[in-house]
């Protein structure tokens, strides 16, 4: 009966999940590819006029972020549920919330971090004014963890169901829409050189709420699912 510290467990979980994901390259490539397709699609669809593009750029980037997060979510607990790793996780000698946090972190690292890294490229492709780029990055930094955290609730609720992604998205998108609204509001303000402080503050509030409450909700949901 050796004591294991919470930190060790958290790090071990993250390490294992990253290993699993990186071995299956499709898992983290698919969302990025999806993102690139979506972003290239819009200039094609609306024509190359820079001003129209700039107008829709914030919206397009955020919708794509949202949807590509969605694509990565499916995996968060499903495979674990199927091979028993989820039960193993629930029986680790640490708060379940902590393990959930680990899952959220991994999801964020795999779906949001690449997005952050290529966001300058996206901004360029969509002729987003350069002064809006820092704000874009800030909204992504504030918003994407919310996507992962709230997404975790949805996946935890649906893991045992084995249903299509449609149900998951149906549950999650309404919850995430406020985030989208504030993020695009901030970006729009930035495009017109206005202050984006208001919407950013709201996003920060969402972030705190999501990170604080989602592990609790996920824990409850997982316990229901495993039962």
């Amino acid at each position, binding site marked *: 009966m050796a004591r294991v510290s919470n930190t060790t467990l958290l790090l071990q979980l993250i390490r294992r999940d990253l290993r699993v994901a990186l071995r299956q390259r499709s898992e983290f490539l698919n969302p990025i590819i999806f993102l690139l397709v979506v972003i290239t699609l819009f200039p094609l669809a609306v024509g190359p006029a820079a001003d129209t593009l700039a107008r829709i750029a914030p919206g397009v980037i955020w919708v794509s972020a949202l949807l590509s997060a969605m694509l990565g979510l499916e995996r968060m607990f499903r495979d674990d549920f199927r091979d028993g790793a989820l039960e193993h996780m629930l029986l680790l000698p640490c708060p379940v919330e902590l393990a959930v946090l680990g899952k959220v972190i991994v999801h964020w690292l795999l779906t949001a971090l690449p997005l952050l890294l290529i966001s300058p490229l996206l901004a360029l492709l969509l002729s987003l004014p350069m002064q809006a780029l820092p704000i874009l990055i800030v909204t992504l930094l504030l918003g994407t963890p919310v996507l992962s955290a709230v997404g975790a*609730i949805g996946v935890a609720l649906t893991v045992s169901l084995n249903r299509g992604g449609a*149900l998951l998205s149906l*549950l999650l998108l309404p919850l995430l829409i406020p985030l989208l609204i504030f993020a695009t509001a901030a970006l729009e303000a930035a495009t017109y050189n206005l202050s984006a402080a208001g919407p950013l503050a709201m996003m920060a509030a969402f972030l705190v709420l999501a990170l604080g409450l989602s592990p609790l909700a996920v824990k409850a949901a997982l316990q229901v699912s495993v039962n």
Partner: protein
Amino acid sequence: MWRWLHPYAKPEATYRLNKKLLPWFAWPGVVLLAVGLVWGLVFAPADYQQGDSYRIIFIHVPSAMWAMGFYVGMAVAALIAVVWQIRTAEWALMAIAPVGAVLTFISLFTGAIWGHPMWGTWWIWDARLTSQLILLFLYLGVMALYVAFEDQRTGAKAAGILAMVGVINIPIIHYSVYWWNTLHQGSTITQMVTRLEAPTMPAEMLWPLLVNLFGFLGVCAALVIMRLNNEILRREVRRPWAIAILKGGQ
């Protein structure tokens, strides 16, 4: 401190309580609704700007408001169900959801009908309209999650968690009119009721609206109670008390 809830949490007790409450909601509800609708749709004066088309307000506003109200009610039931593991609360949750969804749908539908003459379009991506649509999605999500589970208790718990998480959207819907510049009306009614001395709406219009508001509440609450009682009986068919009631037809 929540001990007082438990006696009512027994299905039988809830059933009997509901039976007692039902007439207090059903009859006033039906009467108020009938009075309010006739008053509003027939007798209230036509609006000087909108003519008769404004009359749809007597359906639109109550349904829109109670759509949100019932969502909150559903979330409270969910909280009780998830935290205190009370089965009747689970059933209440699922009794409320479809009623709320229908209310939301009515508000959207009447809004769209109203919007056509008023704004010249059936639909516009205005903040309030959109957020009301999201409310519909939330209801549908809760219901879809519930039926997706084979085991109904599990389904109710899962749906309950979702319902609770979704509450954050309610203030957003309500304040959407302030946060964004929109086509849609601000909260005139709420203001009016709190500041009766400076009405922004003629009393002949306000009164039938208020009557309708409570009429909707009564009828919908009665519907919920009836759905809940049906559910209780369905789940407890094998229990002696339920058998007695079913046989005795009381």
